[in-house]
């Protein structure tokens, strides 16, 4: 399956785009997606290691299962306020 990952702030700047498209085996987890993203986009290594993930606009844990319709975002450490 192909999933899309929204990027923000330093992650967006380092990737040079605001969304990644990543091929994953169907039924992949957030943890597996993280490994794949780091392997394919080594420049995101540091930010990914400090970031959280969101699925469908809620923070998601590592073993959440993904599907093609999942609304996925990489959430670097926040600095609003």
């Amino acid at each position, binding site marked *: 399956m192909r999933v899309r990952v*929204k990027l*923000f*702030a*330093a992650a967006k*700047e*380092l990737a040079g785009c605001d969304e990644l498209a990543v091929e994953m085996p169907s039924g992949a987890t957030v943890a597996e997606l993280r490994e794949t993203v780091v392997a394919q986009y080594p420049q995101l290594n*540091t*930010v990914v290691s*400090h970031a959280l993930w*969101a699925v469908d*606009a*809620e*923070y998601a844990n590592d073993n959440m299962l993904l599907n093609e319709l999942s609304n996925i*975002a990489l*959430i*670097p*450490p*926040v*600095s*609003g*306020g």
Partner: protein
Amino acid sequence: MIRLTNDPIDTAALIDAARHPEAGAVVLFLGTTRELTDGRQTVALDYEAYREMAERQLADLETEARRRWPVLECRIVHRLGRVAPTEASVAIAVSTPHRADAFAAGQWLIDSLKQGVPIWKREQWADGTTEWVHPGMDKEGETRRGGGGG
């Protein structure tokens, strides 16, 4: 009520919205852009949000604050885009019957907002460099505009 906006925050309107016949206290918190931080000069801050998620999280914070304290009115507004020095990037107004609750709810709301709501700021330093602020992370996000890549 929560809101993300690209326009300057109308603090007088926020205060008026927080007034309530049963309120003995209104606390307004403004997060304002520091022009000077440890001697370094900021030209502006640029704010970006994961809008859909930030709005949901802010609404959840309001709900939770109303559960914890006897909140009569609650307004949370966050700026997006460019914010100049001394302007407010965030405003929180809370009214309660008694003052201790208004202070506690206001402080909890801004602390929680800063901890978890997906909004980010980028410093525009006076020396021409920019820097995404990601607490706890090294400065790989920093890019230099003027004097060549760094």
